[in-house]
């Protein structure tokens, strides 16, 4: 073992990896929030609950139907996305003409209901979810041992973020989405069914949360509170990155995970608040966020 800045390298890399893992979840969750905010102009406070629901769907598929983790990575986002379609059509769509605050209250209320029902049904202690066989064990990277599953989580999240970014920034579907966030009326007059696009955007955003939930299931036990504990930090990430910025949410998500991990090494007492300290500094100096448009 060697030392870096007077700290054992294994500790440093270990925390860096933990930071990257948290960052992987921050990035996926804040990306979904950014997409939803861009199109629907609401801050989706149900996001943590739907992340949790993704993990529960994966657990249920395995427990009751014997469907593997790998299929759940695909199926849970579809199931939760379909639930998102329902939420958007039945509840959220009624609020577009009202103040932002109503959307926030509604989605917050929905989160409480979903989490309450889950707690009622499953208790709050949580159920274990085994790491899939193919990803058990660890790999010797030379400078540290990396648990395979954790490496997979970082790679899967980064891959998914990249894919979403490519779709939004480089395809014609993405161009239509970006245009509709700027001026939905004109885009609709071109013959595009913007209300349906809004519904599907919400579904895609929450499907990303569910995807993150499935990734999280083997790391944190599957429990009704797993979303709530993440989501507060994720909102801070979103504020720091800049509401609605796609690339910003990805970069900030991973970046802040790393910052958090490094703080655990250099100043452990500060690790639980460092993201919020960053948030305060960013809000004071760049109120629109690091990647937000508009600036001061």
């Amino acid at each position, binding site marked *: 073992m060697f030392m870096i800045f007077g700290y054992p390298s294994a500790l440093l890399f270990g925390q860096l990896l933990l930071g990257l893992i948290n960052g992987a979840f921050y990035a996926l969750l804040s990306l979904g929030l950014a997409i939803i905010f861009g199109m629907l102009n609401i801050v989706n406070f149900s996001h943590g609950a739907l992340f949790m629901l993704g993990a529960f769907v994966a657990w249920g598929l395995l427990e009751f139907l014997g469907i593997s983790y790998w299929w759940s990575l695909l199926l849970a986002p579809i199931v939760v996305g379909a639930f998102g379609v329902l939420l958007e059509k039945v509840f959220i769509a009624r609020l577009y003409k009202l103040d932002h605050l109503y959307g926030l209250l509604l989605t917050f209320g929905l989160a409480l209901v979903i989490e309450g029902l889950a707690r009622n049904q499953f208790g709050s202690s949580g159920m274990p979810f085994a790491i899939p066989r193919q990803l058990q064990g660890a790999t010797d990277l030379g400078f540290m041992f990396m648990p395979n599953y954790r490496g997979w989580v970082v790679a899967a999240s980064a891959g998914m973020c990249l894919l979403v970014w490519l779709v939004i920034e480089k395809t*014609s579907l993405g*161009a*239509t989405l*970006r*245009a509709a*966030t*700027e*001026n939905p*009326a*004109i*885009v*609709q*007059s*071109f*013959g*595009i*069914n*913007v*209300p349906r696009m809004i519904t599907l955007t919400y579904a895609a955003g929450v499907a990303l949360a569910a995807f993150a939930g499935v990734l999280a299931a083997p790391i944190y036990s599957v429990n009704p509170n797993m979303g709530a504990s993440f989501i507060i930090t994720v909102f801070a990430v979103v504020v720091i990155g800049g509401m609605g910025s796609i690339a910003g949410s990805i970069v900030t998500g991973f970046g802040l995970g790393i910052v958090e991990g490094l703080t655990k090494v250099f100043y452990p007492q500060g690790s639980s608040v460092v993201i919020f300290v960053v948030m305060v500094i960013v809000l004071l100096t760049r109120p629109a966020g690091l990647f937000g448009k508009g600036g001061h």
Partner: protein
Amino acid sequence: MSDAAMLEVRGLNAWYGESHILHGVDFDVRQGEVVTLLGRNGAGKTTTMKSIMGLVGRRAGSIKLNGAEMTGLRPDQIGRAGIALCPEERAIFAGLNVTENLMLPPKIAEGGLDLPTIYTLFPNLKERAASQGTKLSGGEQQMLAIARILRTGAKLLLLDEPTEGLAPVIVQQIGRMIREIKQRGFTVLLVEQNFRFAATVADRHYVMEHGKVIDQFRNDDLQNNMDKLHDYLGV
């Protein structure tokens, strides 16, 4: 050119929230015509365009495209039926480059202009293809806003003050472009404040005031009606 109206607007009323803006607008546009709506600021020209497109809060009356009623339809359905709006504020998207702006409206029918033709009509758009849409000059943005609805196969184009705030050479270029697309069988409803420009492209003119059509002229008759027109437009 057939005599039946392609667009038939009857008793059109429109509201923004509580404000009642259009009070029974009537006019026709026939297939292949270029027809203008003239009128002072605030007469209701833009509101008429938006109402046809379904973009105002509430409207009543009848808007028929080739005999089919449009008033019950959503804006996307009206767009699919073959009407396309080039709005007064141009609505070029800042988040899209020039090519993305141009390719944004989906094809709704055959018979739109193909890209080579569009680039021949608007050479600047080709040169600036990768620029951010809103980095173009005002004139170029106007060209882009018109060009993107020529591709789609929509046959009735609503152009809201395409010459507003543009240099005379650009205005002439837009005039040539309108005559060119008329040749190619497009039908145009044009909002203008500048009737000297309107006279160079239009077949007929309607004059609006206080949310109503109050008069109409054939372009051939324009000279005989100059006094009235000056009076209506306050120029």
